[in-house]
């Protein structure tokens, strides 16, 4: 199912339900532009980031989720789920993507948010 929000021109793609993602875990949405990691926090907030750590491209979807952060499985960089930014003192970012929940249904956009040069 695809729907276009006229106000923002965001193209929402339904990717599944909240329950498909384990709490404090992540799943991958595979797109032609690359994988997107969709995270769920302990209090059921959902975030989507390009599945590539700004450090060496590690798959963030495979990391341990804690608070609103994920630790990259390769070298333990911490990435903020809401902004995609690396936690200081590390520097860099992973692109973040719009996410919305309608009831249990989960939608993401494959057009990244502004603010991170890594697409």
């Amino acid at each position, binding site marked *: 199912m695809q729907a276009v929000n006229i106000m923002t021109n965001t193209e929402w793609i339904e*990717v*599944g339900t909240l329950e498909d993602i384990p709490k404090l875990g992540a799943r991958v949405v595979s797109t032609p532009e690359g*994988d997107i990691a969709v995270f769920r926090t302990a209090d059921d907030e959902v975030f989507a980031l390009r599945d590539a750590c700004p450090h060496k*491209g590690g*798959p963030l979807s495979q990391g341990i989720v804690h*608070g609103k952060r994920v630790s990259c499985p390769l070298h333990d960089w911490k990435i903020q789920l809401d902004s995609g930014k690396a936690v200081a003192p590390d520097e860099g970012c992973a692109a973040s993507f719009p996410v919305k929940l309608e009831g249990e249904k989960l939608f993401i956009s494959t057009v990244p948010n502004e603010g991170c040069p890594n697409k």
Partner: protein
Amino acid sequence: MKEKLVVVGNGMAGIRAVEELLKLDPQMYDITVFGNEPHGNYNRIMLSPVLAGEKTIDDIMLNDLQWYDDNGIVLQAGKAVVDIDRRARKVVADDGTVAPYDRLLLATGSLPFIIPLPGHDLPGVISFRDIKDVDTMLDASKKYKHAVVIGGGLLGLEAANGLMSQGMKVTVLHLMDTLMERQMDSIAGKMLKKSLQDKGMQVLLQASTKEIIGSDRVKGVLLEDGRELTADIVVMAVGIRPNIELAKKTHLHCERGVVVNDTMQTFDPRIYAVGECVEHRHQTYGLVAPLFEQARVCANHLAQHGIGRYEGSVTSTKLKVTGIDLFSAGNFSGDDDTEELVFQDAARGVYRKLVVKDNKVEGTVMFGDTIDSSWYFDLMRDETDISDLRDSILFGQAHLGDAGHGDDNRVALMADTVEICGCNGVSKGEIVDAISSKKLFTLEEVRAHTKASSSCGSCTGLVEALLSHTMGGDYSTAPHLKPMCGCTEHPHDDVREAIREHKLLSVHDVMQTMNWDTPDGCSKCRPALNYYLLCAWPEEYHDDYQSRFINERAHANIQKDATYSVIPRMWGGGTTPDELRAIADVADEYDVKTVHVTGGQRIALYGLKKCELPGVWKKLSDAGMVSGHAYGKALRTVKTCVGKEWCRFGTQDSTHLGVELEKMTWGSWTPHKFKMAVSGCPRNCAEATIKDLGVVCVDSGYEIHIAGNGGVKVRATDLLCNVATEAEVLEYCAAYMQLYREQAHYLERTAPWIERVGLTYVKQHVVEDEAERKSLMERFLISQKAVQVDPWTERAEGKDEHEFTVLKQVG
């Protein structure tokens, strides 16, 4: 309305407390800071390098004025607080400024001690305490030639070294017959004196000053014995005393310092005190690590978390003089009840002394090569029994050689380009730069900023040495018991005890019961807690899937390109044509890029996509193979030689024993990876003496060796005992593994574990106490019942399907 916090003192301790408080709760207080000096907050420790011309004032600013603005803090710089009205709860400054408080933090620091000699108030006579003193000295060094430093302690020698670097001719006068006698014994003192003289410093011992000469400015110094020295500037560095005038004036209880309790409160509970002005359990401190610990506890209490307590610190001393490595800590002089272990090599300029009492290190003095200072300091703080180490302790921890940097240990003499961290390619220069420019104080901070020693950790000693060398006299290592991670105050052992005592059954329960600072921990503590829980409650605990590192969730090893490797178990290193055929078929079918024989006698398939794993496992499982757990903090392999079945030298059936050991132990989770080997004779082809547990077969039976390591730091095993039968080997192995499982910290291999607890301890539990051994074995076997289910077969049949499938394929 927000409560008001007033801080008296804009130095390192006071501002550190404010920083810690802001981290915990930035909105809780309106904060006002009073400071005598007209600057922001700077790193007082680094005044010596500024004087020596190695740094500028800008380099050592910790918080500039902007920082106070950004955090909504009112800085009253250049205003000295002269009175506290405790009844009305307000402070008054010398210019009449009044600030009301709900809580008050005193961080007034210390004052230099000035000997009231005739002439002590002449222009040109100064102390060495703040930026103003440094400016005076730098200024003098441009106009004048001769400097006299009174006091041959830490501060005096650093001042003298700095003035010398500025081109002055410097004489140090010291009352005692040994330099730094409060930190050094006479041998190290003599070596130090020689090194300083070689650098061009003049040192006069047992030199008592009678008078400072001059009329409108200092001209010289007259000694009691009649000698007269020319001096254009005199630096008095004979000691410091806590600055408690304000506290006394307001009738707070003071001894040598302002007396505080374990939450850093004075006798007036609204008034806290931290830093050099404080006396805690009859101790005063002048080093940075204890002050920071105090600041953390104080902030914790101010934020009403109220769980932290300061219980005092063990401190150590280093001298910040370029090219001179010295270190001392604890009771280094010894007394009638202590003994000394001494290593002295005059030609190399190396001296090490350990003062030992009841087989515990009480103190140490080191000169020349101080790389092992942090190890000795740890042994001292942890009160480790060193009876097992006595024959080698003086040669240091690294005497077997660390992978990556051999035995090149003298950080002071290293060129800036020398690579310190071989894993992350970090040089000495980069680390020193980061410590200075980014104002780093702790090992953890250096790791975060430079990545040095954050991977394999073999260069930790070198990084600590660099840290103390760069920070000099005021660096001392982490608090007595290290917390598990940044999420909690509690060290590993306390957490494990609480899990057992309160019967905590989930990661969440532990965090709640033990007041975790974060809602759901971090990538350090969660896997550790999950392990501690499953070890404590093997039959009841439900494994916390999301607290496992990816390798243990995916039951395969993640590689740098996000593919995985698969290593099936080969019992005791044995395989069959059918198994090899199945592996070959899988490799063909999945187009495996690399097939590699591992160091643990198995075959690894590299480059598999995650979604392919269940299919791969199905094929391997159909051929009778199971997971090799090569991805886990778990029993890995049991390496064997072929033993007496084939080998003409073999004494026992080592292959059979290896298979039996692996059948008993496979699937077990351990604090870190656990490797075994069985060699059929003392030629030891299976390299059993660098394994976590190694068996060497001999004609009369079996030698059981433990706690070896072939990795980062090579460590040959210690002999645990000899036994006669295979059944006994299994029993000792199970008991030893269970003791390690129950006692070691998460991610602590057997080698560092045994160096921490001592071989004797393990022998007592596993060898000497039969009942204990049997009960350890029983607990091990109980926990094995729950885990000896092949994870690959389960997942080939559909378990954890979400782990191996994408949520959605778009486009």
